């Protein structure tokens, strides 16, 4: 019946071309060969577009030469691990090992993520489950910082951290500003601003409101029936929180942590602003340094190897958690 009706109605060329049926199941019909080949051509062109920069950097990273090839090379013609070895051995001109850089990056991304999560979860629970007077106003307070891009609060955080210094004074005294100061000149031995914990604190400043908001959104979706049943059985709110809600929220806690990890792993603006000692540098700062000021003298294969190393953990986590992350990102993006 429908087959007879088809020729009279000329369907849209695009619709016909794509054989539009979005159910995802294969019906009885097969795609005609000419159409299949045309579609394959299109998908291949798109795949080339995607693979072009990736293959370019992969090829560079496996090259043993430090210069870029003078003609385009997208397929490695040698598999030299020289660049990787050099990067792992001595990533920069400074006497800093790769392990140190990795540790700094890991300290910031894991530390900030964990602290934000642990502190945020109880607040998220309060917002999600309790009715109390100041709820509305406190929620707006948490929301306001989300509107601000991270760089927006960099100045006050920079100055705040910079005022926490430990100074060795002329005598044997030690002055801790802003509480005490030296009488004369002194040597600054510790500046919170110029230290990894200082950067971590500044990063938590932005991560915490986000974690509260994100977790609250998830806790809202956990059905309340379980808790009501527990309440009838005589559980108090604290027990409900630790015995029922927390275990149910573990997947989302993990997703929030990894979302944070992906962001903090690439964090560049704050460390680059705060830190000045090469031994405090993170992987992303090192990568920026490699292509930054002395771009003409850079060993390109090492830069490419570094790029691959920085990208790897994020790519692995992303692929493993893909399903959760897309939903989480969009929900978070709409809210803030």
């Amino acid at each position, binding site marked *: 019946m429908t087959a007879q009706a088809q020729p009279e109605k000329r369907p849209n060329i695009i619709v016909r071309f794509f054989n*539009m049926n979005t159910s995802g199941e294969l019906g009885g019909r097969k795609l005609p060969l000419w159409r299949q080949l045309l579609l394959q051509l299109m998908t291949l062109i798109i795949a080339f577009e995607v693979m072009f920069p990736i293959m370019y950097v992969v090829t560079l990273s496996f090259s043993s030469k430090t210069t870029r*090839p003078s003609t385009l090379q997208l397929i490695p013609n040698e598999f030299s691990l020289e660049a990787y070895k050099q990067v792992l051995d001595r990533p920069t001109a400074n006497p800093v090992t790769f392990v140190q850089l990795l540790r700094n990056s890991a300290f910031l991304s894991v530390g900030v993520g964990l602290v934000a999560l642990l*502190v945020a979860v109880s*607040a998220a629970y309060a917002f999600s489950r309790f009715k109390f007077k100041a709820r509305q106003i406190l929620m707006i307070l948490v929301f306001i*910082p989300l509107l601000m891009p991270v760089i927006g609060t960099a*100045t006050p955080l920079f100055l705040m951290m910079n005022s926490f210094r430990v100074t060795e004074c002329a005598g044997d005294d030690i002055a801790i500003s802003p509480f005490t100061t030296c009488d004369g000149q002194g040597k600054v031995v510790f500046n919170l601003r110029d230290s990894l914990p200082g950067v971590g604190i500044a990063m938590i400043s932005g991560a915490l409101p986000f974690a509260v908001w994100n977790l609250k959104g998830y806790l809202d979706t956990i059905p309340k029936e379980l808790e009501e049943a527990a309440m009838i059985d005589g559980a108090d709110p604290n027990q409900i929180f630790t015995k029922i809600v927390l275990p149910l929220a573990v997947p989302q806690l993990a997703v929030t942590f990894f979302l944070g990890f992906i962001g903090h792993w*690439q964090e560049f603006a704050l460390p680059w602003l705060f830190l000045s000692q090469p031994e405090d540098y993170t992987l992303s700062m090192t990568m920026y340094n490699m292509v930054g000021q002395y771009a003409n003298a850079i060993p390109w294969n090492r830069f490419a190897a570094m790029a691959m190393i920085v990208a790897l953990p994020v790519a692995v986590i992303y692929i493993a958690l893909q399903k959760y992350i897309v939903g989480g990102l969009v929900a978070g993006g709409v809210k803030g």
Partner: protein
Amino acid sequence: MAAITAEPHVSKRRAQLQKAILPYLYLFPAFLIMSVITFYPLIYQVVLSTTNFETRHLLKGLRSEDLEFVGLDNYKAIIDGSLPVQNFNFFRVLTYNFWWAITNVMVHVPAGVLIAILLNTQGLWFKRIYRAVYILPVVIPPLVVATVWRNIFNENYGALNQLITTITQFFGAEGVVRIRWLTEYKPPIPWLLPNSPLTLAYYAMMIANFWLGWPFMTLVATGALQSIPKELFEAASIDGASPTQQFWNVIVPLLRPAMVPAAIYGFMMSFNLFNFVYFMTNGGPARSTELLVTFAYDLVRNLRLYGVAAAFAVIVFFVALIVFLITNRITRATESYT
């Protein structure tokens, strides 16, 4: 007797009090930390924005003797362009920032949806391989992507000039192509955005950000496409709807609730795309690709005008607030669609 009746009354009141305090106890740790490192800096920022805080005040902070209260002078200087900063014009940066975000989303969303539909075609070979390949740009950190693309756009050794050279030489042209993608200041299409010249670097970044942006939209659109029940198409065709009508009346409206939030997310991401811009062009040439966030960063990191930087951040906050109110309106309006 009195004691017996009073007792439950007291414990009941205590329980009520406990119940009233409990939410605040749960909120306490988060708010304690946020008040020190989130809320206080926001207030500090506003105070700072009314001073002439510079490098020489770093030692003593707000207690410096020569720190002056300048009122709204910093704000005025930003708006009327009298900052001691080269090539800076607030309204040009603002216009460019909006243009940048809007043009990106306008390209990413349709491309993402079309590619999702293409991938969803019945009986397409190697679907899984394509899906796996197309996800790669979402997975790689933007910071790495930006450095790689910056390398690709290099005028002497960049892969893109090499690719163009290969193509032109294939068609018989002589010589090597040397397009100054990221450094040429002369805008190729001068009339496009009269307020703010769009240099070649803008187009280069559009290309790189296109690579980065559409796969996410495809991801979202694919999810939405697959959740459209088959019965809807059957019902539509029984009712006599042509495939064209089905496209506009079934697919488009059902994709909209998923694509609007994704588009707004994409807009916000592009609007504040710090890492990408900073790694690719650093705002250059001559600040022509500077976004609000990259300029804010330049003010504090390189120019070290802390007072001005604070004032600028306050302005950025209000711009972000306005953008949020508008986008929030849009999502609210489309929510009722489902």
